[in-house]
């Protein structure tokens, strides 16, 4: 099966399930208990923000209103925490684990440190994001909806590492025939934006919330030019315009307009596979292996109640960005989309990493 039919099926399932799942009857009671939500990153990252946002809401929604505390277990780019969670088994349903794209990519790329298996875990909630790429004003003037006039410009980009989420923009720019040189070793996308603002980098990308917070203003002031979004997936698994940024073209549109960039074939499939794994389903919350169905249902109902809050669209967009949130079977389907990348796409990306950046995951 090709990647596109697979994603289509998975996304259809995902959307259907999210809509249809009936609220479960809550027989499980967490009165007086403390739920630990373990995040395999430090207190300071985006996943921390995500969990800290959901934790008090989840506490209100779970039967018995347990205390939900977020615990941090950083190390080895989240593989340490995930390896730990792999060994945990169901106890009394008070353990929740959160992952992000940075946990998914090493898993997909066969990082030797990965000792975890996503399919053993039970996903109860998933949420995604988008991303926007932008150029400095000078080079942005050459952007006409295609990258044709950008192909002989030298670009420099502050990157966290080619094997991280940055894989998606780096591969996209390469497909457009652009010459982007990554400066590795920055600590977060905020540092990348600062490098861009200082004029040291002349191309950058931010996730939706980061773009809204810091970069949209530069674009409005004419100091930067929005180039493209990665897009978002429709019910058929097609890439369409990001609903948060309907006025900005997607990478797919730019690619179609650009000479030599193909929106089919091995390279495109690989890019799309990793885009899907990294953005529309970026963060997932899991219960450990062997969790009984009634506990799963309780969590599903609780997350559904959180999403159904009247003020949810408002508070979530302000605090964690306009993410689509999947629960229950929707989360299960989301996990499928995020982790089932065809072997050919994996092989392509692993080879590309080696050829372009000398990265070997051994």
């Amino acid at each position, binding site marked *: 099966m090709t990647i596109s039919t697979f994603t289509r099926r998975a996304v259809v399932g995902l959307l259907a399930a999210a809509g249809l799942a009936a609220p479960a009857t809550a027989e499980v009671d967490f009165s007086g208990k403390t739920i630990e939500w373990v995040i395999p990153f*430090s*207190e*300071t*990252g985006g996943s*921390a*923000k995500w969990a*800290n*946002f959901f*934790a*008090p809401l989840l*506490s209100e929604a779970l039967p018995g209103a347990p*205390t*939900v*505390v*977020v*615990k*941090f*277990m*950083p*190390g*080895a780019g989240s*593989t*340490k925490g995930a390896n730990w969670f792999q060994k945990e088994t169901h106890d009394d349903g008070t353990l929740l684990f959160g992952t992000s794209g940075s946990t998914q990519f090493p898993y997909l790329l066969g990082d*030797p*440190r990965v000792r975890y298996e996503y399919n053993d875990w039970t996903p109860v909630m998933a949420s995604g994001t988008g991303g926007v790429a932008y150029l400095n004003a000078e080079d942005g003037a050459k952007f006409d909806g295609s990258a044709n006039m950008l192909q002989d410009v*030298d670009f*420099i980009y502050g990157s966290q*590492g080619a*094997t991280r989420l940055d894989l998606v923009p780096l591969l996209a720019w390469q497909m457009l025939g652009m010459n982007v*040189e990554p*400066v*590795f*070793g*920055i600590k*977060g996308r*905020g*540092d990348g*934006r*600062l*490098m861009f*603002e*200082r*004029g*040291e980098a002349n191309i950058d990308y931010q996730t939706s919330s980061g773009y809204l*917070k*810091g970069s949209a*203003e530069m674009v409005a002031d004419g100091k930067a030019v929005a180039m493209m979004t990665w897009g978002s997936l429709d019910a058929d698994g097609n890439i369409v315009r990001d609903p948060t940024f309907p006025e900005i073209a997607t990478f797919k549109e730019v690619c179609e307009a650009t000479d030599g960039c193909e929106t089919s074939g091995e390279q495109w499939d690989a890019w799309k596979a990793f885009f899907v794994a990294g953005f529309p389903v970026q963060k997932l919350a899991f219960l450990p292996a062997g969790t009984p169905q009634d506990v799963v249902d309780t969590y599903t109902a609780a997350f559904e109640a959180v999403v159904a809050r009247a003020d949810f669209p408002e*508070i979530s967009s*302000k*605090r964690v960005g306009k993410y689509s949130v999947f629960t229950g079977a929707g989360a299960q389907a989301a996990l499928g989309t995020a982790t089932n990348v065809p072997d050919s796409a994996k092989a392509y990306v692993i080879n590309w990493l080696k050829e372009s*950046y*000398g*990265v070997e995951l051994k």
Partner: protein
Amino acid sequence: MEAFATALPALSDAWALILQPVVLGYLVLGVVMGLAVGVFPGLGGIAGLSLLLPFMFGMDPILGLALMIGMVAVVPTSDTFASVLMGIPGSSASQATVLDGFPMAKKGEAARALSAAFASSLFGGLVGATFLTVFILVARPIVLAFGLPEMLMITILGLSMVAVLAGRYALKGLAAAGLGLMIGTIGEADAGGSLRMSSYDLPYLTDGLKLVIVGLGIFAIPEIVSLLRQDRSIAKGAQLGGGWLDGVRDWFANIWLSVRCSIIGVVVGVIPGLGGSVVDWIAYGHAVQTTKDKSNFGKGEVRGVIGPESSNNAKEGGGLVPTLLFGIPGSGSMAIFIGAVALLGSGSIEVGPGMLKNNLDITYSIVWLLALANVVGTVLCIAASGGIAKLTTIRFTYLAPFLFMLISFAAFQSGQNFEDLLALFVIGLIGIFLRRFDWSRPAFLIGFVLSNPVEKFTNQAFQIASFRFRKSFDQGIEYIFSPIVIVLIVITVVSVFFGIRQAKSIMAEGDVKAGSKRAPVVFLLVIAGYLLTAFINASMIPDYNMTDKVIPLVIGGFALLCCLILMVQMMMRPEGDAIFADKEVAGDEADAPYGLWSTLAWFASLIAGTFFVGFILALVGFLIAFFRVRAGASWPRTLLLTAAGIAFMCLMAGALNRDFPPGLLQGMVDLPWPLK
């Protein structure tokens, strides 16, 4: 001037917000909680803020800010207790304070050192806030002027302080700094991900060593072990001289030093990406260079306390600039702070570029809440310092087990691995021998702290510079030699020049007598052996990952060269030459009633016990055995002290929601907390 026209009303709005009784009440609550949490070295701010997070959701913004800022502000104040009284550097902000603060405590002047430190902190905080009130309006372009070459130069300026702190033998100091730099490169490289001196089979090392562990190992463990061997109180003869008023007077007599160091603190704090790691060393170096009689540094010179302490609270204020204006956290606690601000109220306060435009009153409230929290915290600390200083008159054997308990727990929190404890022990051993053979420990620590920035900024600046040079030669030169870089180069050269001349008179370890050749030579060979191994290891990284190998090769090569010259000198010189400095020959160590290894075995037993039965059970056994056997305490006293220690540990860890290191036992049976 338009900016200033809006600033004044915003400033008065801010004061109206702050000066509400309920806001002040929350601030004081935050301060008190911050002081309580601050006892854990290296954990303070982050642990405290995480604890507050669940309450922030939807809270009235100004109340939430008062609570959080109260807590964050006092951590660099309260960790002064540990640095001065016990020689434990609580955070990167108080490393330099240890150098003179702890010797003062040993002289019985703990209260004086503490109150001088607190007065400086308070003043630094206020100078910082005043400076910021104006500066924040014009900060944006200035912050943006600090690109990678500028940051690299500031890091090198920090590194140049090694020249001042190298000790009697400049070569030894340089080699120690080189060793620190090399140990800082252990793990996965930031740029290309190559592994240095580590392997995926030993995942612990791939993340590199944490500053908390290295700081505790290099400074705290050697001092604890040394005092424990001598079986005395921290203050020699258990005498307390110099009350807290003396300290305040000392500060006042050096007020200009305090002003200058505060400005250094704010300015360096403003630059994102450097954090606090260099500030206190630059301030310490400045204090040394501006003092006429340098002979007391390292032995309890009060100016060595006033300098770094003035800068570290001012730095917190400076650190608000990148945090509030760019949404880029200057430190771990600031990162949580940003996340927490988004949870406040209706989420309308958005930390980042819009902050000045939309929330100038809130921005000013934050700046002045920070200053006010400093005042409250300092007054509380000064009030307590006289009493707490009495700790230094207690027989150290009764304090040591609690210190082992605290530093083990703190070390474990940095990575939550059992290996954290092993790393602490190994680094502690290195610290003990650096101290024994008079190799500069501050130089080692500066090297370690700046290892990552040096490597990162060098690589990135080089990459961008070569990119500019490809465009045109002028653009490249303009990028590398900006006016700021040139000024920094001049400052660095001047400070190295004077530093080298002064280094000989600053003896951080006191006057260490020299002995036979054998032990110092063996230690030199061990260091050189490690450096050589690391050098060969780095040279095996493939060339396409040049970014990951160039710094270890250059630094490692340089440090090896220093070792080689030292080796030749050691061969040429006669026994008894100062190059063979060895604390075991004469002085406190040599006369100590207990040996090094038997003392260290106690600490090792706590770690080994933890490996088998987990931390709390091991701690019970360790405390009882220590008090009974080593301290010779009666059974009731032993049990009382043990119970107090365990209760304190459980209370704090429970309140902060932290786990203890588990052992093999916990892997087999499920035990309830705190035993699990």
